[in-house]
């Protein structure tokens, strides 16, 4: 039985279109990202190339209610360059943010915080979320930079939280959090 679907995300930022993806968005380009260790390694996810069918089934598992898979597309060419995965907990009004920028031409170009700012507005203002959090690996330096640059609060270091897929060593993760009121205050200061 098909799961009930929530409201898809559909946003525009200065440079990007940000919308919930559908199985029709599965592409060879996206499949390539899943098999690229340079892209998947910082997430401690094994690089195994998915087929388009596998990817389409994966996408179909997101309901735009509890789980969101949100594509980032260039405005100019509608080129897909990455995605956010946001998991919500309605009881606690929290949202767990994860992301991948698959197109390496866009690394270091401020994509993450431009898009995440729009998503924070959406989830805080229109989807009932009161707190966002993210848990990057401590060694994922670019991701950590982005959380700090955007004003997320470091809430803790989780020592040896997960096991490296490369060598089995224990890896540290940070826990970053951002509450709705903090975000609004921060936006007021920066806008």
């Amino acid at each position, binding site marked *: 039985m098909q799961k009930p679907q929530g409201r898809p995300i559909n946003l525009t930022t200065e440079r990007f279109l940000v919308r919930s993806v559908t199985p029709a968005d599965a592409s060879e380009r996206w499949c390539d990202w899943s098999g690229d260790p340079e892209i998947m390694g910082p997430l401690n996810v094994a690089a195994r190339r998915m087929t388009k069918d596998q990817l389409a089934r994966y996408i179909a598992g997101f309901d735009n209610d509890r789980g969101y898979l949100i594509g980032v597309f260039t405005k100019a060419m509608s080129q897909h360059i990455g995605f956010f995965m946001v998991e919500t907990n309605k009881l606690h009004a929290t949202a767990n943010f994860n992301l991948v920028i698959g197109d390496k031409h866009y690394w270091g170009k401020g994509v993450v915080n431009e898009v995440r700012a729009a998503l924070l507005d959406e989830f805080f203002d229109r989807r009932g979320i009161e707190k966002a959090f993210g848990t990057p690996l401590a060694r994922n330096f*670019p*991701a950590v930079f*982005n959380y700090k640059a955007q004003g997320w609060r470091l809430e803790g270091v989780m020592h040896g939280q997960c096991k490296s897929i490369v060598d089995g060593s224990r890896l540290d993760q940070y826990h970053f959090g951002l509450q709705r009121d903090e975000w609004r205050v921060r936006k007021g200061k920066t806008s």
Partner: protein
Amino acid sequence: MSVSTTARALLAEALAMDAHALPADARIGALEQWDSLAHARILLALEERIGKPLDAAEAIAIESLEDIAKVLARRG
């Protein structure tokens, strides 16, 4: 070479800037060149310099030229 000079050289190289052009109060948010990828280059260069990985508490604290110099003074 003093710790502060080494820190300045390390940061300048990671940011592809002239060391003399770096302000003494260089930090995240104040320099356009200090983006997410540059941040990774800085931390990796620092680890190479001290010969071991930064621990999570050290890595998270690095936000400025002064912070880099502090790590070098402590572990360099």
